[in-house]
């Protein structure tokens, strides 16, 4: 029987078609994000637009966590640490950068103007630095699994938080800032007070571009040889090794991919609130994200979207319960876990469920 590599030459796709298929989802992602920003946001009012924004960020963060916890089955509870690192990197670039290069602490320039480009640069920088940390966390974690790995990642999150709290004060006077170079300001991240006055660049557009891009990439990863390696690690590590899967590398890949988008998510988060408080991005934030993944369904992309939407919207809906709303919220979680311990979607995607296939069948029948 012909080997995989012997077959490759004959199966090469038409390059133009292939490149088109590679790019189209990204174009669609940008177009959709633009529509959400332009039409959906204004139509639903300020409160719900804010909730929609939170949902987008939650999808981005939980979706990235899902690659480690869901695909690779490595139980990480330090995701907020990556957020915090990414947020710091981006805030450092946009806040001090704005003062240095634009001479203002406010947002600068219009749609995709200099200010927003700086912000996009900040998000990418945040992602890259978080990804580098992902390697650092990934490496010692490789020998550990289950509860032990959870404790290591928990420790990592706490280390990042505490390091954030002992950084130097953040100078707020423009003159003082301008006297120092960007490099000299790298440790002036606000300490325990948090990093504040971060220009509010985060809009529905940027949040949903990043969220949709993550979903596209997470989908492509899941349905590829690289992604199957991660799933194999989750299912049976010994068998995965015996079948030639480099489980060490697979786990590091998962951590890096996951950390990158957590860093981007942290950047968006920081530029939405205008402040980055290390106390807010501690253990509890990590747990919030784990809950979304578990409720949505470990490893399921559509599950994460559902989970993130439900868990962000629920507390808002329960606002009428006033003081009791967190109890109601917690009860809802308990109910889901009792009724569907595998999460809303389990490991399946929406289009893999029998209900979906039935609906599709009916739809096709009706079309005929």
């Amino acid at each position, binding site marked *: 029987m012909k*080997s*995989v590599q012997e077959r490759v030459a004959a199966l090469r796709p038409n390059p133009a078609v292939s490149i088109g298929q590679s790019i189209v989802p990204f174009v669609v992602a940008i177009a959709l994000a633009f529509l959400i920003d332009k039409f959906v946001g204004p139509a639903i009012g300020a409160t719900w637009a804010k909730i929609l924004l939170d949902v987008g960020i939650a999808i981005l963060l939980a979706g990235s966590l899902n690659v480690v916890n869901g695909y690779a089955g490595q139980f990480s509870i330090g995701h907020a640490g990556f957020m915090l690192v990414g947020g710091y990197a981006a805030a450092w670039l946009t806040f001090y950068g704005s003062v240095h290069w634009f001479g203002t602490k406010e947002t600068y320039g219009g749609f995709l103007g200099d200010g927003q480009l700086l912000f996009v640069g900040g998000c990418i920088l945040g992602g890259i630095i978080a990804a580098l940390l992902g390697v650092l966390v990934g490496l010692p974690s490789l020998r550990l699994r289950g509860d032990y790995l959870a404790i290591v990642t928990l420790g990592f999150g706490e280390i990042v938080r505490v390091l954030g709290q002992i950084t130097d004060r953040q100078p707020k006077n423009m003159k003082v800032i301008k006297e120092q170079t960007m490099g000299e300001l790298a440790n002036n991240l606000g300490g325990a007070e948090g990093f504040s006055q971060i220009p509010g660049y985060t809009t529905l557009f940027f949040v949903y571009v990043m969220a949709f891009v993550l979903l596209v990439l997470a989908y492509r990863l899941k349905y590829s040889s690289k992604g199957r390696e991660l799933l194999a690690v989750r299912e049976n590590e010994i068998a995965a090794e*015996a079948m030639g899967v480099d489980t060490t590398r697979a786990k590091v890949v998962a951590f890096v991919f996951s950390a990158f988008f957590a860093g981007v998510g942290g950047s968006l988060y920081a530029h939405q609130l205008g402040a980055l408080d290390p106390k807010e991005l501690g253990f509890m934030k990590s747990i919030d994200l784990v809950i979304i993944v578990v409720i949505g369904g470990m490893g399921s992309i559509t599950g994460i979207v559902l989970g993130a939407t439900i868990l962000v919207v629920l507390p808002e809906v329960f606002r009428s319960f006033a003081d009791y709303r967190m109890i109601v919220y917690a009860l809802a979680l308990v109910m889901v876990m009792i009724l569907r311990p595998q999460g809303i979607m389990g*490991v399946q995607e929406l289009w893999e469920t029998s209900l979906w296939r039935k609906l599709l069948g009916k739809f096709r029948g009706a079309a005929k």
Partner: protein
Amino acid sequence: MSANIALSIQNISIAFGGLKAVSEFSMELPRGCLYGLIGPNGAGKTTVFNLLTGVYKPDTGSVGMGKMRIDGKKPNQIARAGMARTFQNIRLFGELSVLDNVRTAAGIRTRSGLFRTLFRSPLHVAEERAVTERSLELLDVLGIRHRRDEQSKSLPYGDQRRLEIARALATEPKVLLLDEPVAGMNTQEKMEMRGLIQSLREQFGVSILLIEHDMGLVMDICEQITVIDHGVTIAKGSPKEIQGNPAVIEAYLGVPDEEDPIPAADRAPSEETN
């Protein structure tokens, strides 16, 4: 090392605490050969497999495949070098579909990295197609293509064993280690599996090392056999030689002078454990 030797094992030993699980085990697996490794329960057969595939590192001795020394390497490196195995206690990727189990293994022969994957480069697309094509052909060979979309953990037992073999073959091995491939099967299934194992050699050009408790099967299809007991090699030779070997009979029965050794050997499967 001769070019006709697929796998050469020299004096490998391992001890767990005070227990010598395998001592001074040596054998040469000729290219294209179907070689049987037998012994009573707890003899150390699976430990030998674990030593060969890198799950354990041998305390002494060496393992060579072709010109490459593989002892001390990691399991995934050994698999990439061309050794694949099945497990006695089935270890499938339970939540994954039958097809995805095989594709995972076939996927190790792809070259595109994370970026090509995420941006779906033409090479990546071609490789994924090749992986799927080859995996489906393997499912055909093993006769389980009709179950391609089922979760592997929901397969009947016999099909799970077949899937394990399909998955092992997907890694493009030169040497295939089968750990009790017919355990728990009925006579009909055993017959099918026997034909299948024999056909694999020609179809895939693999050399096969087989652990099996079913003496009838081993004596029938293996060209050479090594018998171990308590980690020590007690006999080597053709099926005929093994059947008449007093040390083997003693190991299985504990009685030196049995009148008719063959039916006794046939009784061995009833003692098998998992």
